[in-house]
């Protein structure tokens, strides 16, 4: 009995000594966030660093914020992201748990004989002794799961960054369009006012006046619609940046960034996306877990109820006996086949999920790449051709007005059309930046230094299946 106890103690100490990362992989996530997004993330755990993060948020909020600042604020302040960080804690705890022995079960029996004198006692300490053998396997699983959780958190970070950027560009565009709508309203108002004044002098009929009025009222409504859009954009950003109360009065840079002269590298996008996508990495790690579990399940189900222990007994005659105890399930019915089938099904399920996601990523990256190219062309087309042409149209219209070939109403309508073209330009520029953010998201950040870790692990997946699959680049 004592020897058995001693063995258990040794195993337990060994298990406890295995390395568990103290920060649950936060530093790794911070490093990867820095290299991929150029941003800092902080897991608020009641430390001095929390305070620093809070100060950083307020410092950023005090000035006009651009897309990068908005992303930074969200990464520091979004509470859902903080909740996701807790998953790291949970995974870390699971890893520790996987290294612990099951607590042994102490069993005590006291038996009274009917003669009243002889007292029998029985002690037993039983444990799922063979469980010890599974500890390294369980720890490997838990470690993989921590990695998966890290990938998931990183995916959440990238997703948040992309959402913030898209919302931010929407807000910037709507804010610019709001100004343009005000110009349109001014033009419609001037036309309506002129119509009113003309009618007052007896020079304009009611139909013409009504037409100018309806154009004016519609311009007011159009302005209101954009105002509504701005409100929605701001609230979406407030949510993403985790802001409320006095913090919601932030201001943004008033103009969308100009089109960058050079386009980002669009070569081998599919391969790069597959290599770097963190969602795919997380799913792969899940797949790996499931794969290991296939082998594990039958073993576990077979030995899980095997109990070893020590048995100490005092016979009624006062004689102490001691000896080992064994409790063994008879595999008459459950031989673990159901559990094994379940684990296998789970693996195949994850494999299909993984493949499906890879197909989606490839499609998405192709789509976004093409959208990026097209929106760039559209922006250039508007900027270099349509807007100068519209300006020329307005100038020529003024000349024709001067030559009495055009009315003020037509002239102001021409101005409105010019502003309309300006709004379409802003929308094209907005769509360009959103596509760019989406592409960066698909490529897991715009700085693509760490691509090897992910691709290595998936190379294994390809090896196992022995054929090319959408999750790897052939």
């Amino acid at each position, binding site marked *: 009995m004592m020897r058995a106890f001693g063995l258990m103690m040794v195993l337990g100490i060994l298990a406890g000594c295995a390395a568990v990362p103290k920060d649950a992989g936060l530093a790794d996530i911070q490093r990867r966030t820095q290299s991929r997004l150029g941003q800092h993330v902080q897991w608020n755990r009641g430390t001095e660093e929390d305070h620093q993060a809070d100060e950083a948020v307020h410092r950023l909020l005090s000035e006009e914020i651009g897309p990068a600042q908005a992303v930074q604020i969200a990464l520091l302040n979004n509470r859902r992201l903080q909740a996701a960080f807790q998953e790291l804690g949970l995974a870390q705890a699971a890893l520790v748990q996987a290294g612990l022995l099951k607590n042994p079960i102490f069993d005590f029996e006291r038996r009274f004989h009917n003669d009243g004198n002889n007292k029998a006692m029985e002690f037993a300490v039983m444990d799922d002794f063979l469980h010890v053998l599974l500890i390294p396997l369980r720890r490997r699983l838990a470690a993989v799961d921590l990695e998966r959780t890290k990938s998931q958190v990183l995916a959440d970070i990238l997703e948040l960054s992309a959402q913030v950027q898209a919302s931010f560009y929407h807000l910037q565009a709507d804010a610019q369009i709001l100004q343009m709508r005000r*110009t349109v309203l*001014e*033009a419609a*108002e*001037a036309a309506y*006012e*002129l119509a009113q*004044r*003309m009618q*007052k*002098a*007896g*020079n*304009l009929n009611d139909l013409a006046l009504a037409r100018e009025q309806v154009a004016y009222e519609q311009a007011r409504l159009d302005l209101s619609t954009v105002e509504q859009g701005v409100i929605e954009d701001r609230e979406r950003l407030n949510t993403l940046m985790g802001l409320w109360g006095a913090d919601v009065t932030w201001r943004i840079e008033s103009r969308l960034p100009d089109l960058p002269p050079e386009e980002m590298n669009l070569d081998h996008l599919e391969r790069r996306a597959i290599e770097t996508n963190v969602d795919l990495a997380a799913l792969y790690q899940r797949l790996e877990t499931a794969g290991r579990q296939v082998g594990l399940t039958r073993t576990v189900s077979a030995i899980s109820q095997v109990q070893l222990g020590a048995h100490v007994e005092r016979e009624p005659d006062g004689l102490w006996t001691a000896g080992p105890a064994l409790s063994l399930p008879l595999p008459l019915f459950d031989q673990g086949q159901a559990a094994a089938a379940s684990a296998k099904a789970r693996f195949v399920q994850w494999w299909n999920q993984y493949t499906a996601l890879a197909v989606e990523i490839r499609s998405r990256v192709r789509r976004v790449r093409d959208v990026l190219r097209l929106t760039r062309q559209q922006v250039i087309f508007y900027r270099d051709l349509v807007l100068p042409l519209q300006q020329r149209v*307005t100038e*020529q219209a*003024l*000349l*024709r*007005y*001067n*030559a*009495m*070939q*055009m*009315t*003020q*109403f*037509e*002239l*102001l309508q021409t*101005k409105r059309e010019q502003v309309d073209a300006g709004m379409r330009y802003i929308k094209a520029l907005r769509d360009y930046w959103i596509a760019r953010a989406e592409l960066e998201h698909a490529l897991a950040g715009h700085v693509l230094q760490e691509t090897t870790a992910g691709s290595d692990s998936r190379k294994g997946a390809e090896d196992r299946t022995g054929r090319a699959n959408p999750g790897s680049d052939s």
Partner: protein
Amino acid sequence: MPTRREFLVSGAVASGAAMLSPQARGADTPSAPTAAVPAYANLPVFPPGEPGQDYTPVVTPNGVTLPWKVVGGAKIFHLVAEPVEDEFAPGLKAHCWGYNGRTSGPTMEVVEGDRVRIYVTNKLPEATTVHWHGVIVPNGMDGVHGLNQPAIPPGETFRYEFAFPRPGTFMYHPHFDELTQLGMGLNGMIVVHPRQPTQPRPDRDFVIMLNEWFIDPGTSRPNTLIMTDFNLFTFNSKVFPATEPLVARQGDRVRIRFGNLSAQDHHPIHIHGYSFAVVETDGGQLPPTARWPEATVLVPVGAVRTIDFVADNPGDWAVHCHMTHHVMNQMGHDSLLLMDVDPGDLNEKIGRLLPGYMTTGLTGNGGMGEMRMALPPNTIAMKGIDYQFGPIGMGGMVTVLKVRPNLTSYEDPGWYQHPDDTVARRATAQELSDDGVKDTGAKPA
């Protein structure tokens, strides 16, 4: 060989007989149709009429007279129909069609009884013909494509040959794709002087073709598809202020021959400072007993009116179409009517949106010529011209009859120097008071 005098006498007699023959036929019995013959039939042979000797040459303001030569007793003319560039006035040029490099075409000037051979070369991108409007010609010379002759294809030259049996003022123009070809400026006047004038020859004999066009501001091509909304109204394809003045010495007998080949509009031409008589149409002379005094002569589409007067009233006199839209240059009709509209701060409001914007027409459009706002290129809309008392806001069918005593040349004599105290001026308070004029429109102090 008959003497020149015999020619003249017999010509006059023959001509007179020919002229009278239609009337004689009308009065005659219809049972004798063989007696009814056209004016050119049995026309006696005259030597070609010579300028200065047989007639006083006409003046075509902004135009020329078609040159000719004599071959075998006939006057030889050559008309070339071709694309031309016309400057309607400084600031407006357009791609038109014309004859011999110009629109209107050169004035063809002959003498009653002259035989002519007219060669017509077609340098247009499409076929053409020439019709001799009002001239009594054999049917095959009348120029209606299809009806009287095949059209003249591009690059070819046709020959017309006939005599001018009666004096008068006529016109020539294509009778092929009339809408396009007349609208593009193919027209010209024909003057047939009488072989034996029954009245004194005019000292100044002007020929003016009336026409209308549409040239969209900023373009340089007459739009011949326009039906009613014309925006340029021309004397010899020029608009005021580019129309050359009609200069006469005080006491001159003045004749003005107006032809109208506008697409849609008759033109009531008003001459300031004078009363005159219509002496002739494209149908012939009016007998003196049929004339009555006029200050405005209505020249219908496709017709000629010739007026005579003695230039006895010195000064600078407006001669213009009295249709008010015809004394504007490229004026659009799409402006808003802003008369008496209170503009408020609209100028500033619209000016913020459209720098350079100006509200006009608030008190009428009289000042438009003076503002000289930026206009589309190749546009003369509302351009005024400065004269001695300020800008003249008219354009289009306007010219100036300049009558001066003791002229030594018919060059433009400049602005009229008014005798003292013969120009309208501001009334003095003393005058108003003396004449008891009370409501003077003066703003209260």
